[in-house]
């Protein structure tokens, strides 16, 4: 029961807080692409890979009181902060950790901007294509983000470093 929720709880427990829904979406997608067995299904959206299933599951976990969601007002938008609660920690006691340790991945991703995570997740979405086609595709679908060849190179280095963690 709720095995997929438990996996996400392990993710949240591996960090003090996750700030930003966009960041959260991209982090789970990147982890999936690093062979971490999250089951949430993703589709490509305006801002890159996005999972409605993940959004719903997070809402459920908030409603169950397993994680807290704090809405913070920014200049032109709202931003959300997620943290594990006591009830969440108690829930996790009923489950064995089914994922590998995620702290190193999460720390590395938390150091990057959400713009960069959007780039990395988009590159991974097209990973089945040859490398030069991936760059072409990223420039085409992300034309407004003005990514450069240097950004793409940084993206590949970042992906490689993440995949070395396990």
């Amino acid at each position, binding site marked *: *029961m709720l095995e997929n929720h438990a996996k996400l709880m392990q993710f949240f427990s591996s960090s003090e807080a996750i700030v930003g829904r966009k960041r959260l979406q991209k982090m789970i997608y990147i982890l999936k692409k690093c062979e971490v067995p999250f089951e949430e299904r993703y589709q*490509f959206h305006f801002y890159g890979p996005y999972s*409605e299933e993940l959004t719903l*599951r997070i*809402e*459920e976990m908030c409603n169950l009181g*397993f994680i807290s969601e704090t809405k913070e007002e920014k200049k*032109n938008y709202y931003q959300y902060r997620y943290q594990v609660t006591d009830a969440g920690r108690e829930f996790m006691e009923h489950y064995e950790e089914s994922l590998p340790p995620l702290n190193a991945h999460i720390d590395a991703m938390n150091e990057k901007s959400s713009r960069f995570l959007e780039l990395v997740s988009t590159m991974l979405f097209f990973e089945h294509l040859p490398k030069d086609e991936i760059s072409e595709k990223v420039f085409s679908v992300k034309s407004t983000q003005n990514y450069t060849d240097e950004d793409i190179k940084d993206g590949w280095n970042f992906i490689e470093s993440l995949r070395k963690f396990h």
Partner: protein
Amino acid sequence: MAYRDEQLSEEKVFKDPVHRYIHVRDQVIWDLIGTPEFQRLRRIRQLGTCYLTFHGAEHSRFNHSLGVYEIVRRIASNFTDRPNWDPKERLLCLAAALLHDLGHGPFSHSFEKVFKLDHEDFTQAILLGDTKVNEVLNKVDKNFAKDVADVINKTYKNKLVVSLISSQIDADRMDYLQRDAYFTGVSYGHFDMERILRVMRPMEDQVVVKESGMHAVEDYIMSRYQMYWQVYFHPVTRSAEVILSKILHRAKELYEKDYTFKLEPTHFLSFFKGEPTLSEYLGLDESIALYYFQMWMQEDDEILSDLCDRFVNRRLFKYIEFNPNSQMAEWMELYKLFQKAGLNPDYYLVVDSSSDLPYDFYRPGEEGERLPIHLLLPNQELKELSRLSEIVESISGKKRTDHKLYVPQDVLDNMSSRSKTKKRIMEILYG
């Protein structure tokens, strides 16, 4: 004349209960409708197991796909000569609208979960693989199939084109809300689509709606909200989905344990193995799946035969509301009690969560999360819908999720009234 410009000598019309008529003039569209891959959609229900709750909900993905095509055809016609709209993209939009659901399999939601498949991958495979659909698309030009696949995959360079088929106010949703309302017979799901189409405007990378059309959009959002809770999240449909997915799990488990089926499940073998080819995938539709469920009612495995009988004869599980936070201890006790009573809890004690369902609500979201609906103000500024509409603001901020516990009530009722196990199960379930 180039194939892409060829027109039928006489317009073809399909009578449709939602849009009255569906008009086809392009030879390409007519040819696509005639392909076996598109005709197969007649044998895939739009709402899966929902017909066990709303008996009218027997409509197919074929009906819906034609409906989405018709809405996009009308939008494209309205956009003619407007800024940001390239008429050369018209045929691409129509083809993508028509073919957007091509990869759906039988009862796709449960099938995809159990067999870890994604219909979107099969849509891409049908568009780009060795199929009749691909043959037709390739006749248009060598890049056309890829472009259609990119639009449906939402990775096409022109985001405006993508947003017609897939956004928070797209042709797909506008068709299915009205069509599902019509066929289920509920009184929700209706909104003034004609008005919305009239006030839609193409922008550089998205479709927006003139502010004067805000109330029509509010109506659409309310319809969507009501349909989710009254139809899509209906607890009885969820019970049927639970049983269906348990049938598939059981059949797969038996196959993996070298169980000898009385009827060799030929059409399912590649699904059990986890690698169906495109032709194997296309070879299994709902009529065939239902045939197997009927045959499996005769199997010696009691769990498989019972679950199939429940599905075919609509003996569904009953449900109670369940809170996984406060009732975790009860659930663990129930699990043991079911085992003691000889009921395999992996098949007969099932928690179903609203996040297991594939439908989504309108969410303004956070910046950069998912593109919201934008209203176009008279000064050409764009504003997110819920910032201007109090109605939308009031429902889009609310989070409604639920969890239900499904059990075979008939089996529990038939247990001896002297059984302590039964007594305790009933105490936990009903207090």
